[in-house]
């Protein structure tokens, strides 16, 4: 069981190659689009794509160099980039964060943040609800006071704030 947890989910080499390939693609997109808008000398100076064209070219060249050295370096295949346990941990944070950002559009910043903090405390901290409720609600109320009232920076609000007449 312990061993299973320690097992690598991805080797450094695999991730290195993957990231370099994505960066190369990004560079290729930049080169392509710069060529489309014109990367040469126009009537009155360099065209819009002149500078980004070479930037894209350098992205492609440098990521190709990283890619080549990762392909040659087979020792990296034995090195773990992230273990299964670590990956699980990261996903238990990343997935709720994505859900949280999606929820903001429907529930507003404050309600979504309350739910997010409460979920975190319940899932990772294993707190009792008696502790979770006051902390998660308290933090959001504090943020409301700081941003809406003190700094007068309005954040997106949802149905709860509308019901309370706080818009």
């Amino acid at each position, binding site marked *: 069981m312990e061993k299973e947890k320690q097992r690598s989910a991805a080797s450094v080499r695999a*991730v*290195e190659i993957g*990231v370099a390939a994505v*960066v190369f693609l*990004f*560079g290729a997109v*930049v080169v392509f*689009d*710069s060529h489309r*808008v*014109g990367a040469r*000398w126009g009537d*009155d*100076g*360099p*065209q*819009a*794509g002149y*500078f*980004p064209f070479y*930037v*894209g070219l350098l*992205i492609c060249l*440098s*990521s190709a*160099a*990283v890619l080549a050295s990762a392909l040659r370096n087979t020792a990296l295949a034995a090195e773990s*980039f*992230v273990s299964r346990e*670590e990956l699980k*941990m*990261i996903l238990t*944070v*990343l997935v709720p*964060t*994505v859900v*949280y*950002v999606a929820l*903001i559009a429907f529930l507003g*910043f404050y309600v979504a*943040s309350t739910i*997010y*903090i409460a*979920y*975190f*405390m319940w*899932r*990772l*901290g294993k*707190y009792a609800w008696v502790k979770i409720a006051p*902390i998660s609600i308290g*933090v959001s109320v504090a*943020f409301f006071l700081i*941003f809406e009232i003190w*700094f*007068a*920076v*309005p*954040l*997106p609000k949802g149905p709860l704030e509308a019901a309370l007449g706080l818009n």
Partner: protein
Amino acid sequence: MEEINALLQGFGVALSPFNLLLMFAGVVLGIIIGVLPGLGGANGVAILLPLTFSMAQQPGGTTSAIILLSCIYWGALFGGAITSILFNIPGEPWSVATTFDGHPLAQKGRAGSALTAAFTSSFFGALVAVIMITFLSPVVAGFALRFGPPEFFSVYLLTFCAFVGMSGGNAAKTVASMMIGFALAAVGLDSVTGTLRLTFGFTSLLKGFDFLIAVIGLFGIGEILETLEEGLAFKGASARINAKVVLETWKELPRYWATSLRSAAVGCFMGIVPGGATPASFMSYGLAQRFSKDGKDFGKGKVEGVVAPETAAHAAGTSALLPMITLGVPGSPTAAVLLGGLLIWGLQPGPLLFVEKPDFVWGLIASMYLGNIAGLIVVLTCVPLFAAILRVPFSIIAPVIIVICAIGAYTVHNSMFDVWLMVVFGVVGYAFKKLRYPLAPMVLALVLGDRAEENFRNAIKGSQGDLLVFFSNGLVGSLTGLALILLFWPLIRALWRGLLRRGSRRAA
């Protein structure tokens, strides 16, 4: 003596009650930011920058805003030492060397002296750097008044080449990271030709990528994800500090005057070079070890081993602002964010700032003196409070930090798209950090991209597309030449060593 007069006027600006209040608020916020995982100088300032938008519109408001933000920077620099010494967690890369002797001291029960030494030498390093800024920046700015587009572009080139040649990391990764920054900066409406670049029909991309979002995502979310791997609990030494310990340590510190001066000099020099704070702290730790009479005890808990890196890191962190205000080239990611702030408030960083906005510049410089004094007072008196923050369980602090990052990202343009971007940048930051792609060049390129491109265009427009314009006179030629030397520095050094070895073999 002109500088002294200007500085006194600056003190007049900085000493208003409102600005003094902002100074203390900034320092306290900065220390909290420096202590918290996932928040550091760069993204802390980035998150709080939108809150200064309305402040900056009042008369004299830009000075107050920069005082607030720069004091957050000083606070974050102080805060980094707290986590390094008590928890063995370097909050910033340049605090790594502080853990070598700081944490062993804390384990021996001498946390108080280690902290006092760290704070006092930080203050000393910053002070030396501010004095240098006071007298050197008008000179540099005056010199830079003669700069045209080719000169400015070659200064940028110098900055970016220094990253590639001096960082010591994988050069291809540094170039890739930097060029991604330039490419992201180019996205959106091209102001010169009115062409849409790299938007592919997405209206959300019209405005381009804001570097603030990138900073919040890369450094904030990325760091939280990285911290998660290391587990959720922080184990730290207790942080008792009292007047007796402080006075005793202060009595001990003058013994290390040579180390302090040397480290401050190294820091000031390296700070002007971008990304210089980290090598400066390591370098002065190494030098202190070599020159100290009990160098062999370094790493086991020597106060001198705390003095050296802290002095250098603060001197470097402070002098990073010299190229920012005089040339518009930031020397560190946090300085880059401050520079971005200046642009947003409608100020053009660069030599003209000294002519057009003397109140702003000298108010800022005066606030550097006062802010560091404020910082020293606050950290010495409130260390246990700040250390207590790290005892708040990670399962509470982590979501709160992510919520703060999300609010920060949203408030930049009041756009939910930016919050999504922040999450994407967070994942990119995590992967890049683990694969050792440096993030600072990307941020700097993102901030400077438009200005670098504009100067490049104007330069080659003037020369009808001839790239030799970057060698057309002595000034620009030596800047470009120096840039190329720095770019190929590792190669040049290897060649030079090879030649020396061959020479010595022949001599033998």
